[in-house]
């Protein structure tokens, strides 16, 4: 990796220049190669996907996806509706297993371990690779119970009658965690005085942020977000974007978005999927947006084709 592009957003013009040169040479070398050059970055990939194919019954939803996602960064997935972004995201924590007709082939490695191995521990995997769904799906429980749900069930928070009788009730720890997660998800101000109310009484955007808080409470290593800001107003969106950027200092974030500006603003690298389930371009966000390799991607980004 001699001429690798740095993952920092303030990458110098020089390094960009080198990649452009190399790209043209690579293209002339072999016509059958993908339209985009293999993207490489400094540091270890957290998730590396190779030759991933997904079928829903006979419907080939993802085709030969190979991609490496670096740690402590934000990776944006963009592409037209129905191109397989959510499908790809679900492959990363094996949520596709829960869809009966879905069939997945290929390898996905998380920290060097194949998560599609027979011996993979799904519960543990999903603890470490958290997910925020496209549609908000809070439990029909109180706001507090929603946030504390994961830690309680993992035994990290000891609550309930037995704990109270044994004098081991960890209410304070829970209060702290709930407040912290709700603050991170930019929801605390709105719900601090009604934590015991049912979460189904929140607005759609509030539910979305509650789901983010619920995911944060489990403290995963990777957070997969499927359009987390689709139901939010500009202010809450800005807060969530700030949150995502600060999360990237510690966590790895993979986010699906339909909002190009958002992807350009917050992500370090961007992957563009196009209709048919192909990964057409993957690279440094600035490059993908300013100087896309493929004509189709350029058309998509500039809005000529959706």
């Amino acid at each position, binding site marked *: 990796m001699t001429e690798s592009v740095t993952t920092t957003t303030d990458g110098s013009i020089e390094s960009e220049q080198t990649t452009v040169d190399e790209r043209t040479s690579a293209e002339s070398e072999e016509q059958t190669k993908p339209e985009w050059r293999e993207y490489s970055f400094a540091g270890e990939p957290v998730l590396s996907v190779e030759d991933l194919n997904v079928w829903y019954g006979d419907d080939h939803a993802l085709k030969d996806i190979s991609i490496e996602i670096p740690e402590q960064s934000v990776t944006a997935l963009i592409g037209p509706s129905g191109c397989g972004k959510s499908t790809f995201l679900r492959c990363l*924590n094996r*949520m596709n297993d*829960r869809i009966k007709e879905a069939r997945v082939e290929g390898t996905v490695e998380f920290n060097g371990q194949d998560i599609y191995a027979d011996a993979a521990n*799904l*519960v*543990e*995997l*999903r*603890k*470490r690779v*958290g*997910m925020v*769904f496209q*549609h908000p*799906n*809070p*439990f*029909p*429980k109180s706001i507090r119970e929603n946030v504390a*749900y*994961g830690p309680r*069930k*993992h035994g990290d928070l000891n609550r309930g009658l037995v704990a109270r009788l044994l004098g081991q009730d960890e209410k304070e720890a829970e209060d702290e965690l709930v407040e912290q997660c709700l603050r991170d998800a930019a929801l605390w101000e709105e719900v601090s005085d009604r934590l015991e*109310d*049912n979460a*189904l*009484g929140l607005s759609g955007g509030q539910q979305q942020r509650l*789901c983010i808080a*619920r*995911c944060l409470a*489990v403290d*995963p290593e990777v957070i997969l977000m499927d359009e987390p800001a689709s139901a939010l107003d500009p202010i809450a969106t800005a807060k969530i974007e700030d949150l995502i950027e600060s999360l990237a200092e510690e966590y790895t974030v993979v986010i699906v978005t339909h909002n190009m500006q958002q992807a350009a603003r917050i992500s370090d690298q961007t992957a563009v999927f196009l209709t048919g389930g192909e990964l057409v371009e993957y690279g440094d966000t600035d490059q993908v947006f300013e100087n896309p390799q493929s004509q189709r991607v350029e058309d998509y980004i500039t809005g000529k084709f959706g």
Partner: protein
Amino acid sequence: MSDSYRTQLVDTKGTSYEQFAIGVTVASFVAFVLAAGTLFGWVPVAGEISGVPGATYFGVGVLGLGVATGALGAFSRWGEAQTTPSRSAGLVVGVVHASIWTVAVGLFLRYTIGIGSVSWLLAVAVGVGVGYFALALPEDLGATAPTAVFVAFLGLLFVTGLISPSWAWQPNGTNATIPGTLVIPLLTMGGVLMTGWASASAYEGFGTRGRQNGAFVLISLVVLLTLSVLVFLLAFVFERGIMVVLENLTLSAGTVTVLLATALFALLRTATVRPTVANGTDRVAAFVNLTVASLLALATLGFVLVIGTNLSISAASITVEPTAVVGAVPGLIAGGVVFGLTRESGEWRPESGRGRSIRRAFRAALLVAGGIGVLELVAGLELAVAGIGAVSVLLGGVVVAALLVAAVRPTDERTESDQVIPPVSWLGRVAVTAFLLACLRVFATGFPVGLDQAGIVASGTIDWPFITNPSQGLGIQPGVMPAMFGTIWIVIGAVTFAVPLAVGSAVFLTEYAEDSIFTRAVDIATNGLWSTPSIVFGLFGLAFIVPRFGNTPSILAAQLVLGFMLLPLVLITSREAMKSVPDEYRDASAALGVSKWQTIRSVVVPASMPGVITGVILGVGRIAGETAPLLLVLNGPAFPNSGPKVLSSFLVRIGADPPFIHVSNPALMERASALPYQLYAVITAGVGAEQSFGWGTALVLLGVVLGFFLLSIATRRYFRRKLHQ
């Protein structure tokens, strides 16, 4: 003209046509209620009212409604009324009219005129003609004219006496007799259903809105009929059973006052009693609540008066003694209800140090009182005098101190006085807690609190022989206590046996088993089991369960058999409830790294609890009244002289061999009686004087089922609230 009306979005004032139409609807409604009342025997039809036969009133009314309905149609078509009828009344209306006319004309020709089998041919011709008429004419005529003619014709039949109360119809080939007293109200109800529907449709000017309104009135009337059947059934049993049930009831006015006041308090706390602030059906409910609350308040005052004037009242063998003595158990119930209802409003969180110490002192006083009670229970001695002294000195001291503090403080701190003097709601709650503690003490130790004339005693404030005694033989005081407890224990056993099994199977079938031939087979089998006749379950119990449990019919065998009967219904409803839990919840939980079993336990099962309880509600109603299987597997004496002592005969023995703790309960292994079983015995005994005993037993059975019903509904409400609030 109708076009200009069509463009009008908001009706500003009711036209006289609309007023006429709504008048017809209301009159139809009234006629329907009166006819239903006749059916139930509340309105006389056979007799005469000021010299005119009751049936004639019906005839005139029905005739009038028919003519009025015809007028509605005619005004709409040829008059000034602004209506928007469709081009046709529609196929359904046509078919319904055709069938009604065919049957009516056929019966009339065949039986009233008597022209043999040709009559049916003619009838079909007339029916088809009317149906065509309804279809082909514009809606305002098609919907009203056939109705009007038919209903007016009915009215004429009644007025002319062609169908009179003494008239009877004996269909050929059967020996059934359908008397006029039945035919008149039934035909009236059918007829006014039609006029109600047609006039409601006319009120909205026919068309789409008219049909909607017509359908609404039709459905309301049918709902009314269903409700009145239910009320009639309950009232019927109540009327016949209540005097037996209440025979020789003796109450202390103190207990009654406390219970009534609690009911009043609960009503005021939980329901709205101000009709002016509610609307729609809420307003009706508020009116009912207000009436009930006023009656409760009056009754409470009345009993306070009874205590004050020291006059005992007795009516029809019910006696109220003018003592202010309260029983411990009613006291516990009343106190518990008030305590639960004031849980939120009765809080007091003083911010000043003094306020907090006052609160602490009150708590300490209550604790001391409780401690004395525990001491008494352990020692078996009565320390109450000393205890009450200590508690009153403490409480009094605290109050005096609080007042002193409030008085002594400089004026500029007075604004904080609410921090030191407790709010009334909180003091009330302290009082209720003290009352509860006192009741608990009396209940546990048996020593009374207070004076002979006013205080809390362990028992004797309610003497209700029918409920608390066994039957003492024919002609003496009847009683249902053993049978009532038999039924209660059987239902409790069946529910505790069936519900966990059913929920467990539902979890397995819904969450673990793949949809396959196997699960479908189980579903079919479950449905089949639920429709299996109960006597088959009884036979199964007799042949399979009884030999395995002591070879004698027993409460346990009855619990198991009825549990088996309950199982399929609870399984079906639990499974449906679990299927309807959205997959999103399961996905959300899985994505948080929560295992499947944890997800089921903390998301799926709580979300399906309301469904499970619905199954229990429906099932308990059925099994509590089951008689046939009990004849086989319970089969005790119908009138035992003691109830099953289930609670007191649990034996727990710790032994050396596994499972080390042996629990047994001989009372469960004995034959017993149950309410439906006893009812059957009373009926088959066939002694005239015992008939009222039977009604009383039936009333108690209804009461027990209703009790379980209310309990389950409260539980279901609790779970629903947790899910949706």
